[in-house]
């Protein structure tokens, strides 16, 4: 556990109570239902690097993203940011100082900008909120600067979001996120809703900005090809747990966990079609009622007795972290 890492998440968990209303439960005898969206996730991110979290629907990666920016409070576990206890900071009077350093970019370019606000108001809001500028002229200058850094122009300032395309809106979101000069950006599927050529533009900008400003990214995605392009380390999630966490090259060249292998095999590839594949079995189970023990065991080709009863913990194995009984 290096203490150099900027972001250290330890045993983060978030449970949602999705039970039916109290009256229904009493009258119909329904039990309480708890959704363990994130069930004990730990990782570290070094300054200036990108950790990608991949997984399919229901794996909890979006919830992890929201836990890291303080939109949710964890049910258990903690987060250390730059050596400080982040959740304590969020609740203290110094919350603003912490929030300045962590920002987020969202998936939907149409819903991430307030349709009734002009672009300069949208980008200027964080600046005003944190008291970072003195007067209107300085605000205009800073906003123009931010727009230019993402490839848009100062002439776009009085326009409304609906006058821009999806890719441009996502760039405006990035400009807004950079307004407070943060150190850490959580990106929740930032290019999933964009066309391929536009995605390339946005990913290139993000990489450039990371290099220029020494930003640290947590990049959430379901698209393994994109992840391979942008990340340094990759974590694979399944039903709220991390099953494998490794350096990018190692993970893609030599995946260890059966789920990672299955995922990599399933991706339709442009240049490697017609290869032999492991047949994919089953579907992601209902997160409200996950399998016992290792949650992947019903679909796993390497399943044993132990997998059905005992939950595997994330352990070090030859330089990577993996949660699997069969591969150890």
């Amino acid at each position: 556990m290096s203490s150099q890492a900027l972001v250290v998440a330890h045993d983060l968990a978030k449970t949602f109570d999705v039970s039916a209303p109290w009256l229904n439960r009493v009258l119909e005898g329904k039990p309480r239902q708890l959704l363990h969206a994130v069930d004990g996730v730990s990782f570290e991110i070094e300054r200036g690097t990108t950790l990608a979290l991949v997984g399919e629907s229901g794996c909890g990666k979006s919830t992890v993203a929201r836990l890291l920016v303080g939109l949710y409070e964890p049910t258990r576990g903690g987060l250390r940011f730059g050596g400080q206890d982040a959740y304590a900071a969020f609740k203290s009077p110094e919350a603003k100082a912490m929030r300045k350093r962590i920002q987020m970019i969202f998936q939907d370019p149409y819903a991430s900008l307030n349709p009734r606000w002009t672009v300069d108001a949208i980008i200027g809001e964080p600046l005003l909120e944190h008291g970072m500028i003195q007067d209107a002229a300085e605000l205009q200058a800073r906003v123009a600067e931010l727009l230019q850094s993402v490839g848009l122009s100062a002439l776009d300032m009085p326009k409304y979001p609906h006058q821009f395309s999806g890719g441009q809106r996502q760039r405006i979101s990035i400009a807004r996120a950079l307004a407070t000069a943060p150190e850490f950006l959580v990106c929740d599927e930032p290019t999933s809703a964009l066309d391929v050529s536009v995605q390339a533009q946005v990913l290139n900008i993000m990489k450039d900005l990371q290099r220029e400003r020494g930003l640290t990214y947590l990049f959430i995605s379901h698209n393994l090809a994109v992840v391979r392009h942008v990340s340094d380390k990759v974590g694979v999630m399944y039903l709220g747990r991390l099953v494998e966490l490794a350096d990018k090259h190692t993970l893609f060249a030599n995946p260890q966990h059966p789920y990672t292998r299955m995922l990599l095999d399933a991706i339709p590839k442009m240049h490697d079609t017609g290869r032999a594949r492991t047949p994919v079995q089953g579907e992601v189970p209902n997160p409200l009622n996950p399998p016992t023990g290792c949650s992947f065991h019903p679909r796993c080709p390497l399943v044993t007795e132990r997998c059905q009863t005992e939950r595997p913990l994330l352990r070090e194995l030859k330089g990577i972290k993996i949660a699997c009984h069969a591969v150890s």
Partner: protein
Amino acid sequence: MRLLQVNKLVVEFPSRHGTLRAIDGISFDIAPGEILGVVGESGAGKSLTGASIIGLLEPPGRIASGSITLQGERIDQYSNDQMRHIRGRKIGAIFQDPLTSLNPLYTVGRQITETIQAHLPVSDDEAKQRAIRLLQDTGIPAAAERMDHYPHQFSGGMRQRVVIAMALAAEPQLIVADEPTTALDVSIQAQIIGLLKTICKDRGAAVMLITHDMGVIAETCDRVAVMYAGRIVEIGPVHEVINRPSHPYTSGLMASIPDMTSDRERLNQIDGAMPRLNAIPQGCAFNPRCPQVFERCKQERPELRPATATQAACWLIPGGAV
């Protein structure tokens, strides 16, 4: 004989800002049993092409000119009643969202048997047997019991299998699939495109697969048409289009897709964006963004002509028009 022939199809949308051409003179055909992919980015017009063929173009959109011929029969000017007989029996449709493609109030079995009996003269029992067989063929376990289940009792991937079964129920010769796997998880996606491929080949149905995902196209299709701003810019065998494209847009597109095999610092980007319908440039629609543009591109619009291994609409290609 070609199963489907689309010739110089033009689809327009009259609006208060003038008439917008969403599809501007596209021509292609599909052979029986072939899988043709139609790929392009948002706004290119690929979904509209599918909708025009099935006859589900939403007004005020309308087919302004050109023709769509199915097995020698012209269907583009058919009334809704006439198209009703074509839909299901000759053309089956699969849409993106399996949740809204199925009626939540009827059992899955009832919806399939209804489709069968609407087009084929079979008894109730025979229809039911066929439905069970279809569900089995699409990989739904315990098909006989699941006939009586409602759509909400199936998971996303299973529902899409039911939709495929329904599309094939009346034994059509052509299936139009509009983004059939976009809403599904990666692991399920692989299962569904595998299923689509085998089941259509088995039944001899041709498929028009509309999607923006080149990986899916690469794994499934025989040929692919690349659309841009309502026009087809390149068409040809799938591996040729991917590996040896002739049109600058196609090559730019292929280079901007992050891929599992190559390692690049920057992805190739095509600057700018697809033009809006009311601002399509004169000449070649791609000319403002093309790295190899020259004078003629801005004046005259190129038609599809034979290139190295495909057909492409570009003035860089020597030779006469197709």
